[in-house]
């Protein structure tokens, strides 16, 4: 039985690689936490990645008019067992060419270690930021378009300290993202000579944040660093801070950036510094308007990185001329890094044309993608301030 199945699978695999010249349907897995703690972020993330797939399919340029079918699966964000089962289904049953995902660092590590890497499938995570993922033995199959937390902590600390703040209160979302970012931020801020008044974690998805804000406010700092998520506890913290008058000046990590924050509290927030991954170009703005035109939020913390993750997979397929798993892996760095024509959001058609003609591309995307030798983005950061009711760029660090 087993033998028979392997034969069938093999025949299918050969068929896809053997007829690379004909138009085909390429399956790509999208595995994100559609239920669970970050369920409110994921629909837009998935839609952003699928936007890139649609752009490529509609262009007619992808492998002689091939189209991409995204297959969604639920990582639940928290349940490693359910997530591995879902990934196993995508990889061994649906035979996806690559995976865009997963989201939370815990399930991402589980999927990478027990399903994706052993099966030789490329995984591009748009949001797993824990430094621990840099050192997994990934055989070059794990990529991420969200930079590791370590760098951002330094950047945000520099920006805050240079703005003249010498003492600050810190609150972080109590998971590996928040904890890692806050460790990096606190270390860097102390090294600069600053003082941390108090560090208090907050849990996402809880009912009330007045206790955290009360503790933070009483420690005697005027600025509050919020290293959390915009539509999770981080927003609750900011709301409670403004409501009680505890803080009106903030330092925000990338998870907190979004127009909805300003729409809700922009008038009350003064002297606020924020950092988000990305370059100096208007690429991110372009992406957001592209997303909006397709009825996607586009401003979630990981919408841009999700689009980039999807786009990179598409370009790697085109560069290799086949949707073969190994070929995708071999071409990821080539399409993401220089040399080549720089590609921005919405320019996938142009990129596919260049690749068909045998040229080279350097995908920049919404978040300034450039892979290091372990398949991670180095991360240049945009230092932002709130001006005229929107986040505007101060400088790139």
């Amino acid at each position: 039985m087993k033998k028979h199945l392997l034969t069938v699978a093999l025949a299918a695999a050969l068929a896809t690689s053997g007829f690379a010249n004909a138009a085909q349907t390429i399956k790509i897995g999208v595995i994100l936490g559609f239920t669970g703690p970050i369920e409110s972020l994921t629909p837009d993330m998935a839609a952003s990645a699928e936007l890139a797939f649609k752009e490529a399919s509609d262009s007619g340029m992808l492998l002689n008019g091939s189209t991409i079918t995204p297959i969604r699966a639920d990582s639940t964000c928290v349940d490693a067992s359910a997530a591995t089962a879902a990934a196993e289904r995508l990889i061994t049953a649906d035979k996806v060419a690559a995976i865009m995902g997963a989201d939370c660092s815990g399930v991402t590590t589980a999927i990478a270690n027990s399903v994706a890497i052993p099966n030789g499938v490329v995984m591009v995570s748009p949001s797993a930021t824990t430094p621990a993922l840099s050192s997994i033995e990934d055989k070059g199959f794990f990529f991420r378009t969200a930079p590791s937390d370590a760098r951002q902590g330094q950047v945000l600390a520099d920006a805050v300290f240079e703005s003249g703040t010498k003492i600050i209160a810190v609150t972080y979302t109590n998971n590996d993202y928040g904890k890692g970012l806050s460790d990096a931020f606190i270390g860097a801020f102390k090294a600069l000579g600053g003082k941390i008044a108090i560090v208090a974690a907050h849990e996402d998805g809880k009912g009330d944040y007045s206790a955290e804000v009360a503790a933070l406010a009483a420690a005697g700092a005027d600025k509050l660093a919020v290293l959390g998520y915009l539509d999770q506890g981080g927003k609750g913290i900011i709301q409670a801070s403004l409501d009680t008058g505890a803080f009106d000046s903030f330092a925000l990590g990338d998870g907190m950036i979004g127009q909805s924050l300003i729409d809700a509290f922009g008038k009350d927030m003064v002297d606020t510094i924020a950092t988000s991954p990305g370059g100096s170009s208007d690429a991110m703005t372009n992406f957001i308007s592209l997303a909006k035109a397709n009825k996607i939020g586009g401003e979630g913390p990981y919408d841009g990185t999700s689009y980039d993750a999807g786009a990179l997979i598409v370009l790697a397929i085109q560069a290799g001329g086949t949707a073969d798993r190994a070929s995708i892996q071999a071409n990821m760095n080539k399409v993401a890094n220089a040399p080549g024509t720089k590609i921005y959001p919405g320019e996938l058609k142009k990129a596919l044309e260049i690749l068909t003609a045998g040229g080279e591309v350097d995908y920049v995307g919404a978040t300034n993608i450039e892979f290091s030798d372990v398949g991670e983005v180095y991360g240049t950061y945009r230092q932002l301030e709130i001006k005229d009711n929107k986040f505007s760029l101060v400088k790139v660090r």
Partner: protein
Amino acid sequence: MSLLKGTRLRPFIVFGIMAALLTFVGISQSWGVSLTIINMCIISAIMTLGVNIQWGYAGLFNVGIMGFCALGGAAAVLVSKAPVTEAWSAGGAGMALALLCLVAGCCFVFILNRKWGKRPFRTTVTFIAALGVYFLARHFYDPASAAIEAVNPAKTGYLGGMGMPIILSWIVGGLFAAGAAWLIGKVTLGLRTDYLAIATLGIAEIIVALLKNEDWLTRGAKNVTGLPRPVPFELQLQQDSWFVDLVSRFNADLLAGLATDERAATLQSLVMDASGIFVKLCYTGLFLMVLLVLFTLCQLALNSPWGRMVRAIRDNETAAAAMGKDIKGRHLQIFVLGSAVVGIAGAMMTTLDGQFTPGTYNPLRYTFLIWVMVIVGGSGNNLGSILGGFLVWFIWIEAEPMGTWLMNVVTLGLDPASALKAHLLGSAQYMRLMVMGGVLLLVLRYSPGGILAEKSGHK
């Protein structure tokens, strides 16, 4: 269904259906998916066995399963990870001192509370003494934990473990859970029904909060990944010549028919598939052994004089007490035993995941879902609870593709551009929750004792 009632064949038939379902997944999706589901099914079945000991045998309503499961997971880290010597020298002594203070202090407060005769001041004095002990322990604890967590926080920042084979942690996990259950049982087993339920629910939250925030012990929210395995790694297998030989011998016919250049590529992809299946089969074997041992022990216990006594207590506490049975003692014993089994399963689960992520324990998945398994399978019946573990986990995983498929069928007639269709397709994931609720309600309605009800005729 009613035709089957009371026949001895019923267990064979339902387990046959279960096997058929898993085989169907193996054929229609892939054997990898099927085995992944089976492995978690077995772990779920062990957890349900543990809960069944408490609820089915003795009627103890424990809603703190999540806590014991997490303790088992912590055991996997503490047993298998290499010790971080730097952290030990930085804060080990301070932490030991803090622990000593806490234990000695607790004994002191306990004795004080017992010996202090006069009622009006007793509570106040105890409270003040407890506060004193708390601050004394904090005095040693604060600098020690800070020192440990400062040791390379991005990689370690905790004391590490014992560096022993991870399979030992299955026993240690059971012991951890048993110890915690003894303490909790001592405190809460006097409570009645719903009060006990919510108390255990709360204590489980406290346990998880401790594991999540005591970074010096378990790395907390930063997670511990890359745990060692009791079975080979897929990547290692793909390099091993014996394994490659085995796969090529197994597929000799297929390979012989190919050209030389194709043969290498084909072999590589075959080896890749086979390594995944091999590793999963190794786990299945190990887990099955544990399940069989525990099941045998449970069966023996249930049918022993002890088991009859326990069920007698469950069915009529007053009568059993009148006959001189030590009800409190038996309840504590059962609470500890059942929790230990859950702890074993928790350690096995963390071993299978290869990582310990304390932030991910939530009551919906680790308490209520397990309860659904017990009720659906049949409480009081060991085979029934195993079936519940298998069936409910299967549905939990397969509800998602089924939901997507269902939504596709439902929306087939709709205009592809319509907002309703997009909304329905986008909501397919939530079918999982509805399906689970639906299954639970249907079983409770039409087969209230569960699919395999308890034999002795009790509900």
